[in-house]
Protein backbone atom coordinates (compact mmCIF):
# COMPACT_ATOMS: atom_id res chain seq x y z
CA UNK A 1 0.00 0.00 0.00
CA UNK A 2 1.39 3.41 -0.97
CA UNK A 3 1.56 6.44 1.28
CA UNK A 4 0.72 9.89 -0.06
CA UNK A 5 4.28 10.66 -1.11
CA UNK A 6 4.56 7.36 -2.96
CA UNK A 7 1.30 8.06 -4.80
CA UNK A 8 2.77 11.42 -5.82
CA UNK A 9 5.98 9.71 -6.90
CA UNK A 10 4.07 7.29 -9.12
CA UNK A 11 1.96 10.15 -10.53
CA UNK A 12 5.14 11.97 -11.52
CA UNK A 13 5.79 9.22 -14.06
CA UNK A 14 2.80 10.57 -16.01
CA UNK A 15 4.71 13.80 -16.69
CA UNK A 16 6.29 14.29 -20.08
CA UNK A 17 8.89 16.79 -21.16
CA UNK A 18 7.33 20.10 -22.14
CA UNK A 19 3.99 19.47 -20.45
CA UNK A 20 1.95 22.31 -18.97
CA UNK A 21 0.51 20.78 -15.79
CA UNK A 22 -2.15 21.78 -13.29
CA UNK A 23 -1.78 20.13 -9.89
CA UNK A 24 -4.74 20.14 -7.51
CA UNK A 25 -4.65 20.59 -3.75
CA UNK A 26 -3.43 17.71 -1.53
CA UNK A 27 -1.54 14.73 -2.94
CA UNK A 28 -1.30 16.28 -6.45
CA UNK A 29 0.69 19.21 -5.04
CA UNK A 30 3.32 16.72 -3.83
CA UNK A 31 3.95 15.59 -7.43
CA UNK A 32 6.10 18.71 -7.88
CA UNK A 33 8.64 17.12 -5.50
CA UNK A 34 9.17 14.11 -7.80
CA UNK A 35 9.56 15.55 -11.28
CA UNK A 36 11.90 13.06 -13.01
CA UNK A 37 15.37 14.18 -13.96
CA UNK A 38 15.70 15.36 -17.54
CA UNK A 39 12.04 16.31 -17.73
CA UNK A 40 10.95 19.90 -17.72
CA UNK A 41 7.33 20.85 -17.05
CA UNK A 42 5.58 24.17 -16.44
CA UNK A 43 3.21 24.22 -13.47
CA UNK A 44 0.00 26.20 -13.85
CA UNK A 45 -1.70 27.61 -10.78
CA UNK A 46 -5.26 28.53 -11.67
CA UNK A 47 -5.25 31.71 -9.59
CA UNK A 48 -3.09 33.17 -12.35
CA UNK A 49 0.44 31.84 -12.71
CA UNK A 50 2.41 29.73 -15.17
CA UNK A 51 5.83 28.70 -13.92
CA UNK A 52 5.19 28.04 -10.25
CA UNK A 53 8.33 27.38 -8.21
CA UNK A 54 8.95 25.90 -4.75
CA UNK A 55 8.04 27.47 -1.41
CA UNK A 56 10.06 30.60 -0.60
CA UNK A 57 12.80 30.70 2.00
CA UNK A 58 11.67 31.85 5.42
CA UNK A 59 11.40 35.64 5.43
CA UNK A 60 11.07 35.87 1.64
CA UNK A 61 7.37 35.00 1.46
CA UNK A 62 5.19 37.48 -0.43
CA UNK A 63 1.47 37.82 0.38
CA UNK A 64 0.86 38.76 -3.27
CA UNK A 65 2.37 35.52 -4.56
CA UNK A 66 0.37 32.42 -3.68
CA UNK A 67 -0.83 29.24 -5.37
CA UNK A 68 -4.37 27.92 -5.74
CA UNK A 69 -4.06 26.31 -2.30
CA UNK A 70 -3.33 29.80 -0.91
CA UNK A 71 0.22 28.76 0.00
CA UNK A 72 3.10 31.18 -0.41
CA UNK A 73 5.23 30.15 -3.37
CA UNK A 74 7.88 31.44 -5.77
CA UNK A 75 8.15 31.72 -9.54
CA UNK A 76 10.70 30.08 -11.84
CA UNK A 77 12.47 31.84 -14.75
CA UNK A 78 10.06 32.19 -17.66
CA UNK A 79 6.96 32.50 -15.51
CA UNK A 80 3.97 34.73 -16.23
CA UNK A 81 1.00 36.16 -14.36
CA UNK A 82 -2.51 36.61 -15.75
CA UNK A 83 -6.07 37.15 -14.60
CA UNK A 84 -8.56 34.42 -13.65
CA UNK A 85 -10.49 34.57 -16.93
CA UNK A 86 -7.35 33.93 -18.96
CA UNK A 87 -6.34 31.22 -16.52
CA UNK A 88 -9.55 29.30 -17.10
CA UNK A 89 -9.45 30.30 -20.75
CA UNK A 90 -6.25 28.34 -21.26
CA UNK A 91 -7.74 25.43 -19.33
CA UNK A 92 -10.99 25.52 -21.34
CA UNK A 93 -9.12 25.80 -24.62
CA UNK A 94 -7.19 22.61 -23.85
CA UNK A 95 -3.78 24.24 -23.57
CA UNK A 96 -2.97 22.50 -20.28
CA UNK A 97 -1.59 19.03 -21.08
CA UNK A 98 -2.22 17.26 -17.80
CA UNK A 99 -4.46 17.85 -14.80
CA UNK A 100 -3.97 15.88 -11.60
CA UNK A 101 -6.59 16.26 -8.90
CA UNK A 102 -7.99 14.52 -5.88
CA UNK A 103 -11.37 12.79 -5.65
CA UNK A 104 -13.79 11.49 -3.07
CA UNK A 105 -15.40 9.12 -5.58
CA UNK A 106 -14.82 8.07 -9.20
CA UNK A 107 -17.22 5.96 -11.26
CA UNK A 108 -16.37 3.27 -13.81
CA UNK A 109 -17.46 5.68 -16.55
CA UNK A 110 -15.06 8.40 -15.40
CA UNK A 111 -17.48 10.56 -13.41
CA UNK A 112 -15.86 12.35 -10.47
CA UNK A 113 -17.19 13.72 -7.17
CA UNK A 114 -14.91 15.89 -5.06
CA UNK A 115 -16.60 19.06 -3.89
CA UNK A 116 -19.47 18.44 -1.54
CA UNK A 117 -20.82 16.04 1.07
CA UNK A 118 -24.48 17.00 1.56
CA UNK A 119 -25.25 18.05 5.12
CA UNK A 120 -21.61 17.68 6.17
CA UNK A 121 -19.16 19.62 4.08
CA UNK A 122 -19.82 22.38 1.58
CA UNK A 123 -16.64 24.16 0.67
CA UNK A 124 -17.41 24.71 -2.98
CA UNK A 125 -16.03 23.46 -6.24
CA UNK A 126 -13.41 26.16 -6.79
CA UNK A 127 -11.85 25.52 -10.17
CA UNK A 128 -12.46 21.76 -10.17
CA UNK A 129 -15.60 21.82 -12.35
CA UNK A 130 -13.89 23.98 -14.97
CA UNK A 131 -10.83 21.73 -14.97
CA UNK A 132 -12.67 18.43 -15.32
CA UNK A 133 -15.05 19.77 -17.98
CA UNK A 134 -12.24 20.91 -20.24
CA UNK A 135 -8.90 19.27 -19.58
CA UNK A 136 -8.05 16.56 -22.09
CA UNK A 137 -5.95 14.46 -19.76
CA UNK A 138 -7.29 14.07 -16.23
CA UNK A 139 -5.57 11.82 -13.72
CA UNK A 140 -6.98 11.34 -10.25
CA UNK A 141 -4.96 10.80 -7.08
CA UNK A 142 -7.01 9.13 -4.37
CA UNK A 143 -7.28 6.55 -1.65
CA UNK A 144 -8.89 3.38 -2.97
CA UNK A 145 -11.22 3.11 0.04
CA UNK A 146 -12.63 5.39 2.73
CA UNK A 147 -11.50 5.05 6.37
CA UNK A 148 -14.27 2.44 6.85
CA UNK A 149 -12.71 0.31 4.10
CA UNK A 150 -15.50 0.97 1.58
CA UNK A 151 -14.55 1.37 -2.06
CA UNK A 152 -14.38 4.85 -3.57
CA UNK A 153 -14.16 3.40 -7.08
CA UNK A 154 -17.83 2.87 -7.81
CA UNK A 155 -20.32 1.76 -10.43
CA UNK A 156 -21.92 5.17 -10.05
CA UNK A 157 -20.96 8.11 -7.80
CA UNK A 158 -23.20 8.68 -4.77
CA UNK A 159 -21.94 12.19 -3.88
CA UNK A 160 -22.82 15.27 -5.95
CA UNK A 161 -20.83 15.21 -9.19
CA UNK A 162 -18.03 17.54 -10.18
CA UNK A 163 -17.94 16.33 -13.78
CA UNK A 164 -19.02 13.44 -15.98
CA UNK A 165 -17.06 10.99 -18.11
CA UNK A 166 -13.83 12.91 -17.70
CA UNK A 167 -11.33 10.90 -15.63
CA UNK A 168 -8.82 8.97 -17.75
CA UNK A 169 -6.62 7.37 -15.12
CA UNK A 170 -6.45 6.77 -11.35
CA UNK A 171 -3.41 6.34 -9.13
CA UNK A 172 -4.57 5.07 -5.76
CA UNK A 173 -2.74 3.73 -2.73
CA UNK A 174 -3.38 0.24 -4.13
CA UNK A 175 -3.27 0.43 -7.90
CA UNK A 176 -2.99 2.26 -11.20
CA UNK A 177 -6.11 1.95 -13.33
CA UNK A 178 -7.26 3.29 -16.68
CA UNK A 179 -10.88 4.17 -17.26
CA UNK A 180 -12.03 2.49 -20.44
CA UNK A 181 -15.37 2.12 -22.20
CA UNK A 182 -15.73 -1.21 -20.39
CA UNK A 183 -14.91 0.09 -16.89
CA UNK A 184 -11.83 0.32 -14.66
CA UNK A 185 -8.86 -1.52 -16.18
CA UNK A 186 -6.17 -2.61 -13.74
CA UNK A 187 -2.70 -1.68 -15.01
CA UNK A 188 -0.39 -1.90 -12.00
CA UNK A 189 -0.60 -2.92 -8.38
CA UNK A 190 1.20 -1.30 -5.46
CA UNK A 191 4.14 -3.27 -4.00
CA UNK A 192 2.85 -6.03 -1.76
CA UNK A 193 -0.79 -5.60 -2.81
CA UNK A 194 -2.48 -8.59 -4.45
CA UNK A 195 -4.84 -8.50 -7.40
CA UNK A 196 -7.42 -10.17 -5.14
CA UNK A 197 -7.27 -7.29 -2.67
CA UNK A 198 -7.76 -4.74 -5.47
CA UNK A 199 -10.72 -6.73 -6.81
CA UNK A 200 -12.24 -6.88 -3.31
CA UNK A 201 -11.84 -3.14 -2.80
CA UNK A 202 -13.12 -1.99 -6.20
CA UNK A 203 -16.92 -1.72 -6.23
CA UNK A 204 -17.22 -0.65 -9.87
CA UNK A 205 -16.63 -2.90 -12.86
CA UNK A 206 -12.98 -3.94 -12.92
CA UNK A 207 -11.15 -5.55 -15.83
CA UNK A 208 -8.15 -7.67 -14.93
CA UNK A 209 -6.40 -8.85 -18.04
CA UNK A 210 -3.40 -11.18 -17.71
CA UNK A 211 -0.48 -10.69 -15.36
CA UNK A 212 -0.60 -7.36 -13.45
CA UNK A 213 2.88 -5.94 -12.83
CA UNK A 214 3.98 -4.27 -9.63
CA UNK A 215 4.47 -0.50 -9.86
CA UNK A 216 7.92 0.74 -10.67
CA UNK A 217 9.19 4.04 -9.30
Amino acid sequence: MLNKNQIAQRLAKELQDGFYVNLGIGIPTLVANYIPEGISVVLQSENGLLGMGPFPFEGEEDADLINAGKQTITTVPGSSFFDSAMSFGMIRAGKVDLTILGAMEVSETGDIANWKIPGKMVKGMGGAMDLVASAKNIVVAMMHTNPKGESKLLHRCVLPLTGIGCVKKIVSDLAVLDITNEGFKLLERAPGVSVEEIIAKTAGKLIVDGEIPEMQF
Partner: protein
Amino acid sequence: MNKVFNNADEALKDIYDGAILLLGGFGLCGIPENCINAIVKKDTKNLTCISNNAGVDDFGIGLMLQKKQVKKMIASYVGENAEFERQLLSGELEVDLIPQGTLATRCMAAGYGMPAIFTPAGVGTEVAIGKEVRIFDNKTYLLEYAFDADFAIVKAWKGDTDGNLIYKATARNFNPLMAMAGKITIAEVEEVVPAGELDPNQIHTPGIYVHRIFEGKNYEKRIEQRTVKKLAD
Protein backbone atom coordinates in the same frame (compact mmCIF):
# COMPACT_ATOMS: atom_id res chain seq x y z
CA MET B 1 -12.87 64.90 -14.30
CA ASN B 2 -11.62 63.96 -10.89
CA LYS B 3 -11.46 60.29 -10.05
CA VAL B 4 -9.20 60.57 -7.04
CA PHE B 5 -10.69 60.24 -3.57
CA ASN B 6 -9.01 60.67 -0.22
CA ASN B 7 -10.00 57.38 1.32
CA ALA B 8 -12.39 54.43 1.31
CA ASP B 9 -15.11 56.27 3.28
CA GLU B 10 -15.33 58.95 0.61
CA ALA B 11 -15.08 56.57 -2.34
CA LEU B 12 -17.88 54.41 -0.90
CA LYS B 13 -20.10 57.27 0.23
CA ASP B 14 -23.10 56.33 -1.92
CA ILE B 15 -23.04 52.58 -1.38
CA TYR B 16 -26.50 51.51 -0.30
CA ASP B 17 -28.40 48.74 1.46
CA GLY B 18 -29.24 45.93 -0.94
CA ALA B 19 -26.48 46.74 -3.44
CA ILE B 20 -24.81 44.05 -5.54
CA LEU B 21 -21.03 44.15 -5.08
CA LEU B 22 -18.20 42.55 -6.99
CA LEU B 23 -15.22 42.17 -4.65
CA GLY B 24 -11.79 41.31 -6.08
CA GLY B 25 -9.25 38.90 -4.65
CA PHE B 26 -8.44 35.21 -4.42
CA GLY B 27 -8.44 33.93 -0.86
CA LEU B 28 -6.98 36.88 1.04
CA CYS B 29 -4.64 37.75 -1.84
CA GLY B 30 -5.44 41.02 -3.59
CA ILE B 31 -8.58 41.82 -1.58
CA PRO B 32 -9.68 45.46 -1.18
CA GLU B 33 -8.91 45.66 2.54
CA ASN B 34 -9.60 49.37 3.00
CA CYS B 35 -12.98 49.20 1.27
CA ILE B 36 -14.09 46.11 3.17
CA ASN B 37 -13.21 47.79 6.47
CA ALA B 38 -15.12 50.90 5.39
CA ILE B 39 -18.22 48.88 4.46
CA VAL B 40 -18.04 47.15 7.86
CA LYS B 41 -17.81 50.56 9.58
CA LYS B 42 -20.67 51.97 7.51
CA ASP B 43 -22.75 48.87 8.34
CA THR B 44 -24.42 48.68 4.92
CA LYS B 45 -26.92 45.80 4.98
CA ASN B 46 -28.55 43.21 2.73
CA LEU B 47 -25.61 43.13 0.38
CA THR B 48 -25.11 40.61 -2.39
CA CYS B 49 -21.39 39.89 -2.59
CA ILE B 50 -19.82 38.28 -5.62
CA SER B 51 -16.30 37.18 -4.79
CA ASN B 52 -14.29 34.01 -5.33
CA ASN B 53 -14.04 33.40 -1.59
CA ALA B 54 -15.64 34.72 1.58
CA GLY B 55 -12.53 35.65 3.52
CA VAL B 56 -11.73 34.06 6.86
CA ASP B 57 -13.59 34.55 10.15
CA ASP B 58 -11.76 37.70 11.19
CA PHE B 59 -10.49 39.16 7.92
CA GLY B 60 -11.79 40.15 4.50
CA ILE B 61 -15.44 39.44 3.69
CA GLY B 62 -15.55 37.38 6.89
CA LEU B 63 -15.79 40.70 8.76
CA MET B 64 -18.94 41.59 6.82
CA LEU B 65 -20.40 38.17 7.55
CA GLN B 66 -19.74 38.62 11.28
CA LYS B 67 -21.87 41.78 11.22
CA LYS B 68 -24.56 40.03 9.16
CA GLN B 69 -24.28 42.57 6.34
CA VAL B 70 -24.40 39.95 3.61
CA LYS B 71 -27.74 38.62 2.39
CA LYS B 72 -26.39 36.59 -0.48
CA MET B 73 -22.93 35.31 -1.35
CA ILE B 74 -21.91 34.19 -4.84
CA ALA B 75 -18.55 32.41 -4.67
CA SER B 76 -16.65 29.36 -5.86
CA TYR B 77 -14.92 28.25 -2.66
CA VAL B 78 -15.88 29.12 0.90
CA GLY B 79 -13.82 26.79 3.11
CA GLU B 80 -11.77 28.25 5.98
CA ASN B 81 -14.69 30.26 7.36
CA ALA B 82 -16.65 28.84 10.30
CA GLU B 83 -19.08 31.77 10.58
CA PHE B 84 -19.90 31.43 6.89
CA GLU B 85 -20.63 27.74 7.33
CA ARG B 86 -22.82 28.43 10.36
CA GLN B 87 -24.91 31.05 8.51
CA LEU B 88 -25.17 28.77 5.48
CA LEU B 89 -26.37 25.75 7.47
CA SER B 90 -28.81 27.84 9.54
CA GLY B 91 -30.27 29.36 6.38
CA GLU B 92 -29.43 32.96 7.38
CA LEU B 93 -27.23 33.36 4.34
CA GLU B 94 -28.22 32.66 0.77
CA VAL B 95 -25.31 31.06 -1.09
CA ASP B 96 -24.76 30.40 -4.76
CA LEU B 97 -21.66 28.30 -5.39
CA ILE B 98 -20.45 28.47 -8.96
CA PRO B 99 -17.33 27.21 -10.76
CA GLN B 100 -14.34 29.53 -10.51
CA GLY B 101 -13.84 29.85 -14.26
CA THR B 102 -17.54 30.57 -14.68
CA LEU B 103 -17.32 33.31 -12.07
CA ALA B 104 -14.32 34.88 -13.83
CA THR B 105 -15.87 34.64 -17.26
CA ARG B 106 -19.20 36.09 -16.16
CA CYS B 107 -17.26 39.15 -14.97
CA MET B 108 -15.33 39.25 -18.23
CA ALA B 109 -18.54 39.06 -20.26
CA ALA B 110 -19.96 42.06 -18.38
CA GLY B 111 -16.81 44.07 -19.05
CA TYR B 112 -16.77 43.08 -22.71
CA GLY B 113 -20.41 43.99 -23.26
CA MET B 114 -21.56 40.43 -23.84
CA PRO B 115 -24.81 39.29 -22.20
CA ALA B 116 -23.79 35.67 -21.68
CA ILE B 117 -21.22 32.98 -22.34
CA PHE B 118 -21.23 29.23 -22.93
CA THR B 119 -19.06 27.02 -20.73
CA PRO B 120 -18.80 23.25 -20.23
CA ALA B 121 -18.10 23.68 -16.50
CA GLY B 122 -20.83 22.03 -14.46
CA VAL B 123 -22.47 20.01 -17.23
CA GLY B 124 -24.07 16.92 -15.69
CA THR B 125 -23.85 18.37 -12.16
CA GLU B 126 -26.25 20.27 -9.92
CA VAL B 127 -24.76 23.50 -11.30
CA ALA B 128 -26.52 22.75 -14.59
CA ILE B 129 -30.02 22.52 -13.07
CA GLY B 130 -32.41 24.89 -14.79
CA LYS B 131 -29.82 26.24 -17.20
CA GLU B 132 -30.11 26.55 -20.95
CA VAL B 133 -27.94 24.05 -22.77
CA ARG B 134 -26.38 24.16 -26.24
CA ILE B 135 -24.35 21.55 -28.04
CA PHE B 136 -21.43 22.68 -30.17
CA ASP B 137 -19.34 20.10 -32.02
CA ASN B 138 -20.82 17.24 -29.93
CA LYS B 139 -19.89 18.86 -26.63
CA THR B 140 -22.48 20.22 -24.18
CA TYR B 141 -22.26 23.75 -22.80
CA LEU B 142 -24.26 25.77 -20.26
CA LEU B 143 -25.46 29.29 -20.88
CA GLU B 144 -24.20 31.56 -18.10
CA TYR B 145 -25.17 35.21 -17.84
CA ALA B 146 -22.88 38.20 -17.41
CA PHE B 147 -22.99 39.67 -13.91
CA ASP B 148 -25.04 42.79 -13.44
CA ALA B 149 -23.48 44.45 -10.40
CA ASP B 150 -23.91 47.92 -8.90
CA PHE B 151 -20.36 48.39 -7.62
CA ALA B 152 -17.07 46.70 -8.41
CA ILE B 153 -14.53 47.07 -5.62
CA VAL B 154 -10.99 46.08 -6.54
CA LYS B 155 -7.45 46.26 -5.28
CA ALA B 156 -4.45 47.09 -7.48
CA TRP B 157 -0.78 47.66 -6.83
CA LYS B 158 -0.35 50.98 -8.58
CA GLY B 159 -2.79 53.34 -10.18
CA ASP B 160 -2.74 56.80 -11.67
CA THR B 161 -5.05 59.79 -11.36
CA ASP B 162 -6.83 58.72 -14.58
CA GLY B 163 -7.69 55.35 -13.05
CA ASN B 164 -5.21 53.20 -14.98
CA LEU B 165 -4.26 50.18 -12.91
CA ILE B 166 -1.37 47.74 -12.56
CA TYR B 167 -1.60 44.64 -10.41
CA LYS B 168 1.16 42.69 -8.72
CA ALA B 169 1.84 38.95 -9.12
CA THR B 170 -1.10 36.67 -8.26
CA ALA B 171 -2.90 39.55 -6.51
CA ARG B 172 -4.20 40.26 -10.04
CA ASN B 173 -6.64 37.27 -10.07
CA PHE B 174 -10.24 38.55 -10.34
CA ASN B 175 -9.43 42.24 -9.91
CA PRO B 176 -9.09 43.34 -13.57
CA LEU B 177 -12.21 41.34 -14.53
CA MET B 178 -14.34 42.81 -11.79
CA ALA B 179 -12.96 46.28 -12.50
CA MET B 180 -14.41 45.95 -16.00
CA ALA B 181 -17.76 44.68 -14.78
CA GLY B 182 -19.04 47.31 -12.35
CA LYS B 183 -21.53 50.05 -13.10
CA ILE B 184 -19.36 52.01 -10.69
CA THR B 185 -15.83 50.72 -10.18
CA ILE B 186 -13.84 51.72 -7.11
CA ALA B 187 -10.14 50.88 -7.05
CA GLU B 188 -7.95 51.02 -4.00
CA VAL B 189 -4.24 50.96 -4.74
CA GLU B 190 -1.03 50.95 -2.78
CA GLU B 191 0.24 53.99 -4.63
CA VAL B 192 -1.52 56.65 -6.71
CA VAL B 193 0.77 58.47 -9.17
CA PRO B 194 0.04 61.39 -11.52
CA ALA B 195 -1.31 60.38 -14.96
CA GLY B 196 1.62 59.88 -17.32
CA GLU B 197 3.92 58.25 -14.82
CA LEU B 198 2.86 54.68 -15.50
CA ASP B 199 4.13 53.11 -18.73
CA PRO B 200 1.09 52.69 -21.02
CA ASN B 201 2.57 49.37 -22.19
CA GLN B 202 2.23 47.97 -18.69
CA ILE B 203 -1.36 48.99 -17.84
CA HIS B 204 -3.60 46.03 -16.99
CA THR B 205 -6.87 47.92 -16.51
CA PRO B 206 -7.41 51.03 -18.68
CA GLY B 207 -8.81 53.96 -16.72
CA ILE B 208 -12.07 54.00 -18.70
CA TYR B 209 -13.27 51.18 -16.47
CA VAL B 210 -12.34 52.90 -13.21
CA HIS B 211 -14.57 55.64 -11.78
CA ARG B 212 -12.95 56.20 -8.40
CA ILE B 213 -9.47 55.59 -7.12
CA PHE B 214 -7.75 56.16 -3.79
CA GLU B 215 -4.53 55.28 -2.08
CA GLY B 216 -5.20 52.72 0.60
CA LYS B 217 -3.33 52.57 3.84
CA ASN B 218 -2.25 50.18 6.57
CA TYR B 219 -2.31 47.11 4.35
CA GLU B 220 -2.17 43.99 6.45
CA LYS B 221 -1.90 41.58 3.47
CA ARG B 222 -2.56 38.61 5.64
CA ILE B 223 -1.18 35.28 4.43
CA GLU B 224 -3.59 32.35 4.68
CA GLN B 225 -1.07 29.51 4.35
CA ARG B 226 2.46 30.55 5.15
CA THR B 227 4.57 27.84 3.54
CA VAL B 228 8.34 28.26 3.58
CA LYS B 229 11.48 26.20 3.37
CA LYS B 230 14.26 26.62 5.90
CA LEU B 231 17.51 28.14 4.71
CA ALA B 232 19.22 24.84 5.51
CA ASP B 233 17.01 22.89 3.07
